[in-house]
């Protein structure tokens, strides 16, 4: 079946040139996306797999690599837990509550988008580093923040705060307050309303936010680099491992770890697309 097109039929007089122009634009787009996005990916896949499966096995057997993935995993899981819990509450407060300073809170939520991760890392050093404002407090209690896991988790959470909030806010705005009100008049408690009405309504938006958060947490390097101190086998995440491995000319190991991160990202990308279809699909239906 032919679908109607805004572009004139190429068989008409004068259509030949238009078709050429159209073909040119399409080709340029494919080249743009292909060369800039796909070629590097192909490069990584090829280089990582080239040394053979034995090398991959060997790389994953290295204690440093295993620890790096473990660390990335811990940071990501804690970040997801914190940003999801507080993100959903913050989104709900921003949409449903009226209070002074609301627009300020709304603006501050986006701060991590605007700040360079390196700045975020530096801010953490100012707070928790040697001579930092909060250092005496934690020092006295024997808790190591900087150059250790706590600061790495903290900066990652900071950077990931906006994702969940920004995905959940529009969904909450779109569904409105009526369903929650209806649940309350039918005798549901606040918790029941939340569990049975609000959560099911925002789940796809929330999933989208969590997927974005995960991708960002796994890939974060700038802020983590500053606060980690790069202690091998202790404060080295997967991205930091790639960073140091390249400096040490361990190219094969670096590519294999990079490929693993890329594979995770592709799974996340599929999740994100699915979630977005569900959100938009519902908008069309209602």
């Amino acid at each position: 079946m032919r679908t109607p097109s805004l572009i004139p039929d190429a068989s008409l007089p004068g259509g030949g040139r238009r078709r050429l122009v159209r073909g040119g634009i399409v080709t340029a787009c494919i080249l743009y996306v292909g060369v800039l996005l796909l070629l590097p990916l192909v490069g990584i896949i090829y280089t990582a797999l080239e040394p053979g499966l034995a090398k991959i096995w060997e790389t994953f057997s290295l204690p440093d690599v295993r620890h790096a993935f473990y660390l990335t995993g811990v940071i990501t899981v804690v970040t997801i837990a914190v940003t999801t819990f507080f993100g959903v509450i913050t989104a709900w407060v921003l949409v449903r509550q009226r209070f002074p300073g609301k627009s300020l809170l709304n603006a501050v939520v986006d701060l991590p988008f605007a700040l360079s991760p390196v700045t975020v890392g530096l801010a953490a050093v100012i707070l928790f580093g040697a001579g930092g404002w909060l250092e005496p407090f934690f020092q006295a209690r024997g808790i190591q923040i900087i150059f250790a896991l706590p600061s790495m988790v903290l900066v990652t959470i900071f950077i990931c705060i906006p994702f969940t909030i920004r995905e959940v806010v529009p969904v909450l705005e779109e569904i409105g307050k009526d369903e929650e009100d209806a649940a309350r008049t039918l005798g549901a408690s606040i918790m029941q309303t939340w569990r049975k009405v609000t959560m099911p309504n925002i789940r796809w938006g929330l999933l989208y936010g969590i997927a974005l958060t995960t991708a960002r947490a796994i890939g974060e390097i700038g802020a983590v680099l500053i606060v980690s101190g790069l202690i091998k086998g202790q404060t080295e995440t997967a991205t930091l491992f790639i960073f140091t491995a390249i400096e040490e000319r361990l190219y094969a190991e670096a590519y294999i770890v990079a490929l693993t991160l890329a594979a995770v990202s592709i799974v996340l990308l599929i999740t994100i697309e699915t979630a977005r279809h569900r959100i938009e699909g519902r908008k069309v239906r209602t």
Partner: protein
Amino acid sequence: MSTPIVVEQLTKRFGSFEAVRDVSFTAPRGAITALLGPSGSGKSTVLRMIAGLETPNEGRIWLGDVELTPKSVQERRVGFVFQHYALFRHMTVRQNVEFGLAVRKQSKSDRMARVDELLELVHLTHFAKRYPDQLSGGQRQRVALARALAPRPEVLLLDEPFGALDAKVRQDLRRWLDELHRELGVTSLLVTHDQEEALELANQVVVMHEGAVEQVGSPGEIYDDPTTPFVAGFVGSANVLHGVVEGGHVHLGALRVPGAEHLTEGAAATAYVRPHDVRISPKGSNGHDPDGTARALGRVERISSLGWLARLTIRLDGGGEHTLVAHVPQNELDGATEGDLVSVDLRNPKAFDHGEARAEE
């Protein structure tokens, strides 16, 4: 079973804006009471305060002899029907109706029986497995009603329940709600801006305007004996005539409208006359009525047919810019045609002094 709703001196402020001002009324047990007013008159806010969805700044709410004011929404046991249905979109029709029973932890078998009974009542038994977005607007609102009634609420609150539906469906649903109410007899409070809906469905009408109650009465009282200029102008259509009080009449040009005995001599006043209370007769009979009311002359500018009625636009002779709209049965036209001079007679006018009448303009 069913209980009256008593509202005492409710006031609600949003910031410096007073949305509801000192509102008191009683919705009698087992009856339908309509809260009628234009948008922004505070009627929905009153309803939401009764449900507990808004907290009043002042005043009290009672269900029979139980005070609701300190109770939370979930403790109040009111049925609420929203203008835009507010169905749970991720639940089927059955799950929607069951919701109020499930959160109250009723046994599964009781729930099933009650849901079946309600689906039957709203004629949606065959739609139990559908989702809200697979239903028409009228069907959705019936689901919403079944859902509100499921936990056997003591009162039913309806917030513009037909407002989002088209005219034909609205008519059907209105008639159906009337029947349903006769069957169930649950005390109901209906918020609407549609006077026809209020007059047709309600046993009692509370007219609201700018956050305050203008008049409480039966549909007949509201229509025939408006006590404020706002009610006279808002309920039903009316000719609005501005004049001066002289000898118990409102004078405008040659027209003398009776019924102004209670107003100060010489004051500016406004009279409201319904189109069906304007009577015409051929020009020749320009005399005096037994009660001394002088009839005025007017020229028929336009006649259009409303079926058995004719709608006439009449420009008053010597009345300046005044035109009247008259609804006259076709057989009482006496052959009058456009351009004819006729004599005009006004019945049941309601006169208010100008200060009062200004308030609604």
